[in-house]
């Protein structure tokens, strides 16, 4: 099994004004090992999405390098499945055609890709919705299709960019639990971005807290709330346990501190 190595990676963009440089990420070091569920959390503008784009290969680093196993990442590829916030499914295809789209691109024979896609759809609980069109599904179901699709090429890693941000609270909890079950079954590395502290704590086996300007990792925590859930199956009990709440408040104060600092410093107000 391969690991993802982010080695001393910096990203700078040209800013709005001429000659200005925006440091989106500054000297990031991160190793994600097989079976890791890494959640990135942080105030807006802290470079979470940039970090995910780097791993996905949509962006290249200004400095440093990213490796998956011993291969350098220099573009997107089917060894890293990406789940987006929304609008990434193909509305002209039905559910199973979406789920097998990646395999079709690889030239996998039809019968074989049907079988794989059906397996993935079963994994996300959509076995009865193969023929539905995407626009006939609820937001939560659409996101399940997104997960099944990302799994289709059997990637080493799942990259998830706020996949639940557009879902309602109840659906969100269901999909969180589903995702943990999928993670346990497939044992894939997952890199997951969220704005929700509770979601981060619940899902992560490792939580990285990022801070903006320049984007960097300020705190890292090893967590086991997800394993507790997988053992007991009782999400509410995990989320209302004393140590969960204590952890939540601790992380919140870190992030609020960043947000306040961001609002207080005048240099960042460019509308």
């Amino acid at each position: 099994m391969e690991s993802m190595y982010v080695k001393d990676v910096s990203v700078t963009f040209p800013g709005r004004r001429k000659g200005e440089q925006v440091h989106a990420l500054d000297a990031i070091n991160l190793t994600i090992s097989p079976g890791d569920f890494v959640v990135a959390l942080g105030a807006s503008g802290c470079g979470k999405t940039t970090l995910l784009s780097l791993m996905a290969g949509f962006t290249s680093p200004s400095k440093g390098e990213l490796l998956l196993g011993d291969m350098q990442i220099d573009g997107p590829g089917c060894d890293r499945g990406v789940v987006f916030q929304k609008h990434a499914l193909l509305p002209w295809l039905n559910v199973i055609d979406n789920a097998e789209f990646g395999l079709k691109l690889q030239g996998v024979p039809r019968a074989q890709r049907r079988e794989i896609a059906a397996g993935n759809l079963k994994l996300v609980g959509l076995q009865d919705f193969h023929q539905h069109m995407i626009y006939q599904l609820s937001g939560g179901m659409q996101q399940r299709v997104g997960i099944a699709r990302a799994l289709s090429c059997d990637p080493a890693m799942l990259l998830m960019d706020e996949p639940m941000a557009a879902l309602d609270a109840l659906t969100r909890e269901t999909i969180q639990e589903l995702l943990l079950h999928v993670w346990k079954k497939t044992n894939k590395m997952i890199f997951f971005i969220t704005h929700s502290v509770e979601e981060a704590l619940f899902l992560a086996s490792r939580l990285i807290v990022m801070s903006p300007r320049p984007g960097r990792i300020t705190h890292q925590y090893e967590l086991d709330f997800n394993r507790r859930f997988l053992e007991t199956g009782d999400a509410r009990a995990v989320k209302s346990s004393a140590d969960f709440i204590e952890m939540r408040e601790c992380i919140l104060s870190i992030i609020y501190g960043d947000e306040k600092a961001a609002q207080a410093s005048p240099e960042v107000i460019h509308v």
Partner: protein
Amino acid sequence: MSSLKALPADKPGSGGSPMSTTHPIPRRGVRLFAKKPAKPGDAFGAPGQGGSVAISAVTVVILLGVWFAATNLGWIKPLFLPSPQLVFDKFIYVSTEGFANSTLLQHTMVSLSRVFGAFLLACVTAIPIGVLMGVSRFARGIFDPPIEFYRPLPPLAYLPLIIIWFGIGEFSKVLLIYLAIFAPLAIAARAGVRSVSMEQIHAAYSMGASRTQIVFYVILKAALPEIFTGMRIGIGVGWTTLVAAEMVASTSGLGFMVLNAAEFLASDVVIMGIIMIGFFAFSFDLLMRYVERALVPWKGKV
């Protein structure tokens, strides 16, 4: 500590309107046509929701009625506006006896073949070129200036040039209509390419798609709804250009028929011709809408 006490659940018959249900509840306002049950949240939806076929039918009936009344009651002279019966008689006459050496069927077939010939040519050229403009900056750089330059020109302005260059034959007529359809169709296809979301493209790339696969499996499909809109606009422009194309050295065609009849002040033939053009244009648009619903059912839903 606050006490949490569950409130009793709603019982049928409890609460609700103070009005007794035995009396009909008075309604305010007048409703045109019956209001159908709406989905929750739709009853006060966006202005303009709901079907309009019945209203359109009434409009058509009223327009015909006004025409009928105005001509039969002698408000307007037949020279300016002939009565519906006269126009219908003319329709029968031209269908059987012909006008200007061709029957109505011949006129219609000639015009249809010109418009649809030009339309098909435009579809097989403008759509690929428009898509190419969307996906390649070179193609955009090359095609953008000529298309944007000639697009707002009225076809009548460059008709003389086309005649000088290509003569007065069938080719010039089809070319004029083709040019009129080409620009809006190419622009629609190009705009359609834009309607693909970056997430869809990124998703395809991260599933190992090549650039060619992205163009054919993602961008082309995403552009389809706008291409259909472009086709509908294009064919409409084609019909409006028909009369201009048939102005010069034609011996048949609906546009020619109208122009020729106008010279003899045969306003009944003019109106009959106009109705024929409108009928075919509208019928084809209905067909296109049907095909659109069948081929791009996701339009407007994502």
